[in-house]
């Protein structure tokens, strides 16, 4: 699997993805565990102390408000990933927007799951920094398409969330 950032650059990812309830607590011995938040819910506020580099992931069907409340200060997390089961599931964009704007998350926000080139531009604009592309959409051609897709637009109507080239005001 390949991960790129919002600029289209390849990102080395040391993160080890732990499936939901795959191996309870197994992530504790990993250097860079990326763990489903409910599997770590009792220790979420202390996560950085338990594993020096720990990230959590949530599902698009999870209530982002409940998640944020369980974490407390989201900025204690260095990585939040949202696992999208289907590329057409637009909840991921509202989850990203809320984490950035309502909860003030400034760390890395990553899309994982059914991630392909043609959704990257909107998810990037909804606050995501990095994207782990779907396994069968990670070959050379697919990566080139993904990089191209991210640069499809040089102008936009809506105000920016983060890391965008140019804000445009209405009218």
């Amino acid at each position: 699997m390949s991960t790129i950032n919002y600029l289209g650059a390849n990102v080395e990812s040391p993160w080890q993805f732990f499936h939901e309830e795959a191996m309870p607590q197994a992530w504790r011995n990993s250097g860079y565990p990326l763990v489903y938040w409910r599997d770590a819910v009792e220790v979420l506020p202390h996560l950085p102390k338990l594993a020096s580099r720990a990230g959590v992931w949530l599902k698009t069907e999870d209530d982002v408000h409940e998640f944020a409340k369980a974490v407390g200060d989201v900025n204690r997390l260095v990585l939040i990933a949202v696992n999208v089961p289907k590329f057409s599931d637009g909840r991921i964009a509202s989850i990203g927007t809320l984490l950035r704007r309502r909860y003030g998350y400034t760390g890395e926000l990553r899309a994982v799951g059914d991630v392909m080139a043609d959704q990257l531009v909107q998810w990037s604009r909804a606050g995501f920094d990095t994207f782990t592309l779907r396994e069968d959409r990670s070959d050379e051609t697919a990566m080139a398409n993904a990089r191209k897709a991210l640069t499809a637009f040089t102008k936009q109507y809506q105000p920016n969330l983060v890391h965008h080239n140019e804000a445009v005001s209405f009218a």
Partner: protein
Amino acid sequence: MYQYNPIDQTIVDERVAQFRDQTARFLAGQLSEDEFRPLRLQNGLYVQRQAPMLRVAVPYGEMSSKQMRMFAHIARKYDKGYGHFTTRQNIQYNWPALETVPDILADLASVQMHAIQTSGNCVRNVTSDHFAGIAVDEITDPRPMAELIRQWSTLQPEFAGLPRKFKIAVNAAKEDRTALQLHDLAVEALSESTWRIWVGGGMGRTPILAKQFKDVSRAEVLGWIESILRVYNLYGRRDNIYKARIKILVDAMGIEKFRSEVEADFAAMYRQELAVTDTSWNAVKAHWTNTPKKTAADSGVAIRQLRADNRAFDRWVERNVFTHKVPGYAAVTISLKAPGRAPGDATADEMDLIAQWADTYSGGELRVSHEQNLILADVPAAQLFALWKELTAAGMAKPTVGLLTNLIACPGGDFCALANARSLPLAEAILQRFDDIDYVHDLGDLDLNISGCINSCGHHHVGHIGILGVDKNGEEWYQILLGGAQGSQASLAKVIGPSFAVEQVPGAIARMLDVYVAQRNEGERFLETYRRVGLPAFKAAAYELSEAK
């Protein structure tokens, strides 16, 4: 009308390039049908029964003669020489080849047009009053608000994957000419500075009238729309396509709970960048400068004389000419309803002719109405007679606006892959049966709406008489509904009973109209008689003789 600035143009041009690349990747096998589907849909492209169908946006129904000529060009070059104007003020082409669609979009972009978000699970092309800017009962001009919503919703990154489609209407007159309560969300002007938001209306399988959400300041309208969409995006159902519209969510939560969820989001998420400031409001308003300001030369006497001398012209003025708020001008409906014409269809040659009329008579601009007609909004009254003669010669002067034979019909099973039954042969049969203009005028105001399936593109739920195509064991049958209404007194029609075979429908309608004629009080319209007399009398007439037929 609104003119693109370099930002608008860049976005539309870049969208064309993006879709050209996506189409090429699909044709090269790099994108599956499943992956390509939402991409093509959000560029207006359906795969239909005969061929792809391309729906092109006419934002809030307003366009220039130059754009109409481009529609004619596209009809000739890429289609079979015609197009279909829709109940959502758009135009559809039924025969484009997939590989030519990027070229069509590039041609559209050259005249400040596009097909962005005309289908798919996103915010669709915003609709408004086809008499915007000229109606006597207007509170304020709805077009600046419609344009701001167009900009805000176009390629909005957070709402590109909603549970289902999302339709917004803007009304700013006392009379509602947008069917606002049948929209996912509607914005209605109470004054230029205060707007009422409605939410949760819609037709389809479960017709529901929208509920009042909140009265808000103009500055905060976009902020409230954004919060409503965020709550819908997160909590709308995604497990069942028939329960995925916002109306189902609002109904399930209850309007009070829904409102408090949205208020909580708004309190935390509203940001100043979304405010419609006086500066941005005035900047957008400044695009509508060419509505006539001065009274035209008084032609009242001459018009009265012409009407007295010419019965056909008199009828046309009575029905197809709408009062303009500037004395000496009028708005004219070009009727796209007549026997032999699918409702809303126009050929390329007719489009060129209509563009010419727009240039000659109405400042080079025109509108699409949600009744599938076209409108010249600023015609000097002194030129009405000359225009009427041209319209008559071209077969577009049927004096039937508001009458039975102004019927609305979706393209139906002849074209649409979703349809259960054909709409157009039935529309044709009704237009032929009721071609007696004296009778139709005597019947007075009567909306008849035909949909070929439950998706209700023909708005059968709000027809005084509605007809819905249904499938029974592979055969086409038609339900008849009565008592629907759009406008400020909106109501949903009721099914009268078992469905009819296609050849029984015109007779059943005729017998119900006999009931109306027999029972009506002086000056009472069909809908009012129906509401007073009740369904049983009409139902009995509809089913009488239907077996003998």
